[in-house]
């Protein structure tokens, strides 16, 4: 890692804009989670996810090559010690080494063990969702995993959260050709899937599909624009409030209607698997429960040909209702420069994450811009923004440099950056003891070296008035 990362490492940010606000944010040293997990002479670790149990954090990732015909991408994990951020498993722990590709892992703690879910192409034809339990001692209880959903068509992009005695695993599902919908299943701490066929959380109206879908499955005839009438739901994320799980995902809107894809949300009550009415929501795609509602963190996009990303969070009531306010956000282009034109329909361009530690929600996202001089190479960054609940609820004033009804009181923090061909991205966050966060991300520095990095992030004590 080079450039600003080293400069930023361990730097304490005097993030509070004014006296009387929460104390500074401290970003710890970067720690490679599994530097000895060498496979075929390379370290290729990608798309991390993280959760905290009672004693340790567990970071999971997709490990290995995606080389067509020689795929070795498997699911690995490693435990990280709270307080120090030290990796307890530098060689990594194998969770799944099945055939073909295993990728996009998600993880939650169910009170006894971690449940890791991932998308799995072991069938060789379509993705299924598999899961495995891992103890806090690092023992894999379900080697190579068990199927959460295994049907024809793609089931992919799992999200997982624990509530009311079950883990809710959600995914995007292509069973309703030609669109994706969001489905979920409950998984017990014993690893039993209570809903083996999956339950719909938000899917396209079957009558609507029947109306526009041509005869003969693939023949389009004069119905040449199904896309005009049907909407997919994709890329779910999940958070728990203890009894229910909020699913946030991207929903297409038929063209010439609301235009670009937007965010939608629905609440799954874990006890009986009932689902609330799906609604459009504002904010970012990464949810966290704040005690006063859901913070939806991550990039929020302006509309238009060259939308500008804002980093922040919007507040959603416990039972989701349609929201349009962007919430407490900052303009990352203003904060970091770049003007990275991402183009239309870029709702989910930059991966993000969010977590609430009892006082604030920390939101992180991947971002990128181009060097203004020289070769104009892409510069990649992981940014974080702390958003107080007061800011989300509009109880603090809007600082003049920030936008949104609540304001934030803070500027975003540069956690790490790298200039192409090096890169950083795919951040993930979990809350540990004493309100500390563990922030993980991938750092690519060479054709044979892409590591998962972890850093402890702490808030200092509040400053007196």
């Amino acid at each position, binding site marked *: 890692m080079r450039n600003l990362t080293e400069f930023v490492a361990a730097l304490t940010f005097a993030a509070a804009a004014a006296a009387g606000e929460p104390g500074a944010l401290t970003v710890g040293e970067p720690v490679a989670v599994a530097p000895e997990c060498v496979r075929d002479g390379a370290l290729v670790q990608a798309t991390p996810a993280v959760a905290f149990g009672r004693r340790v954090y567990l970071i999971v990732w997709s490990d290995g090559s995606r080389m067509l015909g020689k795929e070795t991408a498997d699911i690995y994990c490693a435990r990280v010690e709270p307080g120090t951020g030290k990796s307890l498993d530098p060689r990594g722990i194998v969770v799944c080494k099945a055939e073909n590709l295993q990728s996009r892992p998600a993880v939650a703690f169910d009170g006894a063990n971690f449940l890791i879910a991932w998308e799995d192409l072991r069938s060789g034809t379509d993705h299924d969702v598999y899961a495995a339990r891992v103890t806090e001692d690092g023992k894999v209880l379900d080697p190579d995993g068990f199927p959460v959903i295994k049907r024809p*068509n793609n089931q992919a992009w799992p999200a997982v959260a624990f509530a009311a005695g079950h883990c809710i695993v959600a995914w995007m599902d*292509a069973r309703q050709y030609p669109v994706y919908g969001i489905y979920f299943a409950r998984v017990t701490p014993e690893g039993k899937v209570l809903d083996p066929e999956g339950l719909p959380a938000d899917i396209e109206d079957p009558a609507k599909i029947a109306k526009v879908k041509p005869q003969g499955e693939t023949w389009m005839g004069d119905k040449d*624009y199904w896309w005009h009438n049907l909407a*997919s739901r994709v*890329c779910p994320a999940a958070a728990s409030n203890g009894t229910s799980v909020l699913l946030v995902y991207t929903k297409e809107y038929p*063209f010439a209607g609301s235009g670009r894809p937007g965010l939608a949300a629905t609440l799954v009550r874990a006890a009986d698997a009932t689902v609330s009415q799906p609604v459009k929501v504002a904010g970012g795609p990464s949810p966290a429960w704040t005690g006063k509602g859901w913070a939806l963190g991550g990039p929020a996009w302006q509309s238009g040909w060259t939308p500008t990303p804002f980093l922040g969070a919007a507040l959603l009531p416990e039972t989701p209702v349609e929201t349009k306010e962007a919430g407490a956000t900052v303009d990352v282009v203003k904060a970091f420069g770049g003007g990275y034109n991402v183009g239309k329909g870029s709702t989910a361009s930059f991966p993000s994450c969010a977590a609430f530690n009892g006082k604030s929600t920390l939101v992180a996202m991947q971002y990128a811009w181009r060097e203004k001089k020289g070769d104009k190479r892409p510069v990649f960054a992981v940014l974080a923004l702390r958003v107080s609940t007061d800011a989300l609820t509009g109880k603090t004033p809007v600082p003049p440099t920030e936008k949104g009804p609540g304001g934030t009181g803070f500027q975003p923090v540069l956690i790490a950056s790298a200039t*192409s061909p090096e890169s950083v991205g795919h951040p993930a966050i979990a809350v540990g003891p004493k309100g500390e966060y563990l922030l993980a991300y991938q750092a690519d520095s060479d054709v044979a070296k892409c590591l998962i990095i972890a850093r402890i992030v702490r808030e200092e004590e509040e400053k007196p008035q």
Partner: protein
Amino acid sequence: MRLASRRAFALVVLASSLPARAGSVATGNALGADHVAFVRSGVVGGLVGPARECAAGDNRDIRCCLAPDGAIWVPDSRDCLVYRIQDGQARIVAGCGVKGYRDGPADRAMFDFGVGSYCDVETNSDAAGNIYVSDMMNNAIRRIFKKPDGRWWVETVSGGTKKGREPRKGEWIPASELKVGGASRFAVADDGTIYYANWGGIYQVKDGKGTRLATPEELTAQLGGRKAIADWHVGGSHITPDGVFYWVPGGQEIYRFDTRTGKAEVVAGEGPKQTDAATVRESGFHTVDVVYSNDAAVIYTGGGDESVPRRIYQGAVKHLQKDGTFKSTHERDRDNWRLYQVAFLSPEGDLYTFCGIYAWAGWLVRVKFAKE
């Protein structure tokens, strides 16, 4: 866009009209269309599996190709990935999902296809099945190929540096030293020779060396004073088996250049935008995509402000209608077939195109035509 078919076509003498025959390419009315691949875009990192369920970051402003083995190669302009679709299955072959510039193992390679309005990329294949990808932000053309040990690999075959130099016309220099090492739209001959038009004129890259075939001034003089190079990220280039190079600067005029004689001329696009005039030359275009049969006897346009495919054939320009017929019309009729972004033609004349305005939905569909 060239065809995968390697059959020899009759020598076409450059003349004021397009070749009259279309070989084995079907040129009748449309029989219908079926969904081939991609169900949507906007999924970060993409999603493989069944081709009709796969997803990409963005399929906007891209051009695909058909390899000799029947595989379709599709780039993802936002995540800088390259997909291969074969036997109904989609897989990512090249790119690690991060913008940048890195050769080597294909799954760890990086491309930079630009962003937003400047997302743009094309793929082509040669007779041996090598896949060529335009990598404009890196000023390069890259080759994807399978090594004897079965590993897919990416290497730069032209450009790759911003500190290169310009060869004089007829001077051959190492292709890696080409200052203008690529264009987002380019053509590849059967033997892997690359042709492209960019700010310095028309270039040729062969056997690791590059040269300039014509300067913009020379071209402009032959084109009646028209601007020969207007924009690098629109249109579509093509090289016929007998060495006639087509390019579309600015998306409004189609030009061609005979690489044997050095003669350039206007093919189409003198009229107002989007009009089907009495002659091809008098018709007007505003497109970002043009695809060709191997001998260029059949040309389709689409994309940009042209949401309806148009066919240039036998001296006429006609829009594809909802009933499958082709008619000359000046209107963007709602009854027309909205298959927005033409991607390539198969040897049989099947038109592969993306549907959806600016391909948000990112569906690759195939339109079949009757034999005349």
